[in-house]
C-alpha cells in the first residue's frame, strides 16, 4: 500500500515518546481541522462520544457550515475529569489532527510546543483565492512548508497520506477515519471501543471500508514509529501545483467571427475586444492565461487557444 511509504514519516528522532496518558487533572485537548466536506465533525464526534462513554467530562465546540465552499472547518474536543472552557487556547492542544495540509500549517501555533502530537494528511486542497495569478506555471499562494521543515516545531509529527490510503481502500471519503486510526495510537482507549465509535458515526453501508481505514491509519503510525525519520518531503508536497507552462497564443479566424461579444464579456481576464470592424482581437496578450473559455463559448468556432513551448519560440519566428 503506497500510504506506508517511509518517506511520509517525519516522526521525531530519538526514542519515541509514549502516547500521552490522560493527565491526572488537566483535560486532554484535541484540535481537529480541515476544510468543508472532509469529515472533521465526524472525527470530533466519534472522539467525544468515546471519551464520554469512558466517563470523562467532554466539551466540544466547532465552526462549520463552510461545507459547500471548501472553507475552513475546525473542532475543539476537550475531555478529562473536569472541563470548564469549551475551547483550546493557543499553544495548548495536546493533539492536532489536520485533514488538509495547509490547514495543519495554519493551526500549528495551537499545538503545545515540545510535547504536542501533530497528525496531518498530506492531502492538499488549494482554495481558489490561492490562485491570484492564473497564468499557467504561475506560483500559487499555498503553504510551502514541507514536512521536514515543520519537524522542529512539533514534539511528535506525522505526515500521513491518509487520502491516498483511503483511495487505495476504495473510498476517498474514509480519509478522516484513517486519521482517526492514527489518533487512536495517541490516546489510551481500547481498540474495540474506537471501532465501536467508528461504527456509531459512519453510514452502515460504508462500515467495512471505514473499519479497514481505521486499522490502516493505526498500523501506519505504529510502523512509522519504528522507522527513523527521513529528511525529504513527501513527493506530493514537492510537486509544483501548476499546469505545464507555455506561451499562450490565440488563433482567431476573423471570417467566422460574428461580433456577438460573448468572448469579450466572459473572458475572466477581460483581455479581448472587438476591433474597428467589430471582429475579435486580443487586446492584452500579457494578461491572457489561456483558460480557453473564449474558445469554448464562441458559438462560431472563431477562437483557438494554443500553448507554444517557450523553448521552441526562437526557432519558429
Amino acid at each position, binding site marked *: 500500500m503506497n500510504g506506508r511509504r517511509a518517506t511520509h514519516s517525519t516522526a521525531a528522532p530519538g526514542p519515541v515518546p509514549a502516547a500521552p496518558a490522560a493527565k491526572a487533572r488537566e483535560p486532554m485537548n484535541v484540535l481537529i481541522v480541515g476544510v468543508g466536506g472532509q469529515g472533521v465533525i465526524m472525527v470530533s464526534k466519534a472522539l467525544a462520544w468515546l471519551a464520554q462513554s469512558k466517563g470523562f467530562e467532554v466539551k466540544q465546540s466547532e465552526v462549520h457550515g463552510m461545507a459547500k465552499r471548501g472553507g475552513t472547518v475546525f473542532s475543539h474536543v476537550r475531555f478529562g475529569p473536569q472541563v470548564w472552557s469549551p475551547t483550546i487556547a493557543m499553544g495548548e492542544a495536546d493533539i492536532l489532527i489536520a485533514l488538509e495540509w495547509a490547514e495543519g500549517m495554519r493551526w500549528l501555533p495551537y499545538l503545545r510546543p515540545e510535547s504536542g502530537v501533530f497528525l496531518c494528511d498530506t492531502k492538499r486542497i488549494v482554495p481558489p483565492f490561492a490562485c491570484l495569478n492564473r497564468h499557467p506555471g504561475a506560483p500559487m499562494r499555498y503553504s510551502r512548508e514541507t514536512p521536514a521543515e515543520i519537524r522542529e516545531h512539533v514534539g511528535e509529527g506525522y505526515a500521513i497520506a491518509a487520502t491516498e490510503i483511503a483511495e487505495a481502500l476504495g473510498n476517498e471519503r474514509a480519509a478522516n477515519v484513517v486519521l482517526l486510526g492514527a489518533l487512536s495510537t495517541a490516546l489510551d482507549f481500547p481498540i474495540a471501543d474506537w471501532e465501536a465509535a467508528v461504527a456509531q458515526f459512519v453510514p452502515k453501508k460504508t462500515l467495512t471500508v471505514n473499519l479497514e481505514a481505521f486499522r490502516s491509519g493505526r498500523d501506519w503510525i505504529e510502523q512509522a514509529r519504528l522507522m527513523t525519520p527521513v529528511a525529504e518531503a513527501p513527493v506530493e508536497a514537492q510537486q509544483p501545483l501548476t499546469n505545464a507552462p507555455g506561451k499562450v497564443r490565440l488563433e482567431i479566424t476573423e*471570417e467566422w467571427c460574428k461580433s456577438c461579444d460573448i468572448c469579450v464579456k466572459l473572458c475572466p481576464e477581460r483581455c479581448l475586444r472587438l476591433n474597428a470592424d467589430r471582429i475579435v482581437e486580443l487586446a492584452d496578450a500579457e494578461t491572457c492565461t489561456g483558460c480557453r473559455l473564449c474558445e*469554448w463559448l464562441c*458559438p462560431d468556432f472563431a477562437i483557438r487557444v494554443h500553448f507554444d513551448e517557450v523553448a521552441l519560440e526562437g526557432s519558429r519566428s
Partner: protein
Amino acid sequence: MIVDSAPAFDVREYLRKEMMPHFLCPGCGHGIALRALLWALHELKVDKDKLAVVSGIGCAGRLSAYIDASTFHVTHGRPLAYATGLALARPDLRVVVISGDGDCLAIGGNHLIHACRRNLKITCLMLNNEVYGMTGGQVSPTTSEMRVTTTTPLGNSEPHFDACALAAAAGAGFVGREGTRHVPKLAELMLAGLEHPGFSFIEVLSDCTEIFGRKNEMGSSSEMILRQKSELRPEAYRDTVDTPFRANELPTGVLAKNARPEYGAAYRKAAAAIKAAAAKKGRK
C-alpha cells in the same frame, strides 16, 4: 476528465469548413452545443465514416449540415423515425439525432416517446431554446410561463413541458440536462450519453438571443449565458437548502438512467432465433 483533451481537440477538424461560417445568428447557443457534441465524439475517437447525424427542421436541425460525417437533414419532427430505421439497419453506425424543442416535443413528440420506450441505441440531443426561432419566434412546448413570443404577445399562459421528465417516464435508458454555459460539463454529459448502450436523451439549454432573448429583453448573449448560472441547479444539489441557487431552477446533470435491454440487439436476437427455427423446420 474531458478537459484533459482540450489542447488536442480542434473543433475545426470535425466541421465542413466550406460551409462555414454557419447560418446561426450571432451569439446563438446552438453553436456552443455543437462544439460540445463534437468534443464528446472526439473523446470517443469516433470514426467519421461510422458516424451518422440525423436532424430535423429548425435552427437546431441545421446543425447536421456543418458536421463532417454522414448527415441527414430530414422532415420536421421525424429525425428519430429516420434514425430508428438507420440504427436498426446499420448497427455498425453511431447514430446521433439533433433536434430542437419544437421539432422534438411538438411535431415529433410522438416519435420521441416511442423512441424512449424502444430503447434503441440512439443519442438524441434536444436543443431547447424555448422558441421556434427559424420561423420567427412562435411559442413552443417548452416556452416558460409568461414569456413573450410572436404567438403569445401578452405572455405564454400554457404550462411548459419538462422534456427530461417525459423522456424518463417513457423509459429512455439515459436522461440528462445541461446548459451551454459550462462547455466541458456539457461535453461530458454528452459523452456519458453516447456511451450509454441504450437510448439516451440529452436536453441542452441553449440561448436564442436574436428572437427569444430580444422579445423578452434578456440582454446580450453573454448576459443570457450568465443567466443560466443563476437558474440551473446541478442534480447533486437538488435536496440542499443552503445553496447559492435560487428556488425554481431546472436540475442539471444525469437525471435518469436504467439498464433496460437495448432494442436493436434484442430485435436481432429474436430475428436470428426465428430464422434458425425456420431453417430447422425446412430441413425436416
